[in-house]
């Protein structure tokens, strides 16, 4: 008979209480893992941003357009190797509740600036050549069972009317962090129709994307672009793709910060739950601890007994929670649209944080009951009726 056996047997004295505590810890670890994954996945676009890409938008707001005429002037700046541009098209495809990004862009330069959009040479050629063509991400193609040659009809909102596009390419993202759901079609095709139906909205682009030869020059190139259009009717704001993405996500940062905070609140709550269980257990066994001390068991033995039981329950709960978190994250990944989270994976750091949290919970929950068991005098403990 060893102390470990006593720890194990002690933890099973109140099977229901121990089981509920283990389940509570497991659920908390699952919640912690999922919340942390949401937080880390939300920032994945920032992490995926290329350091040699700059984005120029209207200085006042992202929602205001810029003249198409800026394209050649931006391209003339030393260090800029490629310029492309895009417009947020929005619109509805079949179901207004199903979101994926739909953008009007310049196909040729788009594919040069975003080399992470993978297409076959034939797909590239056909997309560039046909003005009413489009490409869609592999996940959208799967969702709607689309194939090359199919017609995608969008019901326009920002650009009203019915818009038909022929699929000439289904792209695969080079990295997991890239959105695999977006749809791109010709800016020129949209602009042509705008010239006919709403001339005031023709010749405008949403934003410019520049590829630069050296990321170290990004600040100076950004300054040159913005100075070039200073005091014009369309002043610009140029920033790195990372900064642009961060600004884009900043509107939701409060929610994400709250989720981040909540993930740690959960750790605190479960610490109290386990602490309560351990306090109840230690209180019920006050007399037994006194007997053990009478028999010659030392303070360290009591620390081992109470701390060991607390760690055992915490580790069992944490283990069950972590084991369940993996399939749940996979389930979430399949359930959540790829356009929201291109990558929804349990990161190593989240697993490490979960393990550290579980160990800390186990340790912290044992402190108070251990302290009480140690401080209680033998004669008081023997008299205790639990």
């Amino acid at each position, binding site marked *: *008979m060893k102390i470990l056996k006593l720890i194990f047997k002690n933890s099973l004295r109140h099977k229901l209480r121990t089981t509920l505590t283990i389940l509570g810890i497991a659920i908390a670890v699952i919640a912690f893992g999922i919340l942390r994954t949401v937080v880390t996945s939300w920032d994945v676009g920032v992490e995926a941003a290329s350091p040699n890409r700059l984005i120029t938008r209207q200085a006042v707001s992202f929602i205001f357009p810029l003249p198409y005429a800026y394209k050649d002037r931006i391209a003339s700046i030393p260090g800029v190797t490629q310029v492309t541009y895009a417009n947020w098209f929005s619109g509805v495809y079949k179901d207004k509740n199903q979101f994926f990004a739909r953008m009007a862009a310049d196909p040729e330069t788009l594919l040069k600036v975003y080399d992470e959009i993978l297409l076959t040479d034939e797909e590239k050629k056909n997309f560039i050549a046909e003005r009413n063509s489009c490409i869609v991400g592999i996940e959208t193609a799967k969702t709607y069972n689309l194939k090359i040659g199919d017609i995608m009809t969008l019901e326009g909102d920002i650009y009203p009317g019915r818009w038909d596009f022929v699929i000439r390419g289904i792209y695969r993202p080079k990295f997991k962090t890239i959105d695999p759901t977006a749809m791109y079609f010709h800016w020129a095709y949209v602009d042509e129709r705008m010239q006919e139906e709403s001339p005031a909205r023709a010749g405008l682009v949403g934003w410019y994307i520049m590829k630069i030869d050296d990321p170290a020059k990004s600040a100076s190139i950004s300054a040159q672009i913005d100075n070039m259009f200073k005091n014009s009717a369309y002043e610009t704001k140029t920033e790195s793709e990372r900064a642009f993405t961060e600004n884009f996500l900043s509107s939701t940062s409060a929610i994400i910060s709250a989720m981040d905070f909540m993930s740690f609140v959960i750790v605190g709550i479960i610490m109290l739950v386990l602490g309560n269980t351990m306090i109840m257990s230690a209180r019920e066994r006050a007399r037994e601890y006194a007997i*053990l*001390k009478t*028999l010659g*068991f*030392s303070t360290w033995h009591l620390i081992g007994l109470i701390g060991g039981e607390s760690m055992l329950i915490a580790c069992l709960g944490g283990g069950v929670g972590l084991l369940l978190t993996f399939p749940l994250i996979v389930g979430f990944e399949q359930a959540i649209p790829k356009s929201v989270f291109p990558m929804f994976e349990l990161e190593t750091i989240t697993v490490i944080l979960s393990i550290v949290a579980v160990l800390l919970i186990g340790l912290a929950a044992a402190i108070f009951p251990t302290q009480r068991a140690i401080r209680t005098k033998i004669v008081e403990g023997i008299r205790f009726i639990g």
Partner: protein
Amino acid sequence: MSAIIQIRNVFKSYWRNSLEIPVLQNISLDVEEGEFLALMGPSGSGKTTLLNLIAGIDRPTKGDLVVSGTDIGKLGESALAKWRSANVGFVFQFYNLIPVLTAYENVELPLLLTKLSKAERKKHVETALGIVGLGDRMHHSPKQLSGGQEQRVAIARAIVTDPSILVADEPTGDLDKHSAQEILTLMERLNKEFKKTIVMVTHDPHAAERALRLLHLEKGDLV
């Protein structure tokens, strides 16, 4: 015969808030090796307190307490715990067995603090349980045993390390007459056959009759 327990001018008080409550007053007592001493007295007379002092689970407020050649009043907590495990066996009124452990495991508990191998521990435990007549109940848990059997397991736990002194606080207080007789007979045997020095606190005059010497305590003083 030499005194295995020497108590000299021992005082013990408890404090309740700022009020000092004297429990033992100027107690001096010698207990010879191999003696079976019974302590009697009314509730609150200090007999359990005196027993606790002898067993090293409480400390005197004043005075000297030499047990088995060691001035236990001067030992630190850790040294006192080691001393207890080597020198004193405890028998309580309510047995105080660990409910999740079997009779075997309960008796083995004090041996976990020694350097004995598993095989040696087994031998000691089987011997102790054999002495108390529970060799066939080793793997029963406390709730599967009667009160008398639980007390016998507690006695086996008290003697498994072969201490020279056994302290017993109302060992028959929670037992029926028949079981109480069995326990007292067992204690007599431990005293006579195994030469254990026994100090027993009891309210029961029949139990006290089994002891070789009887002392009365009243209001913290030996009378």
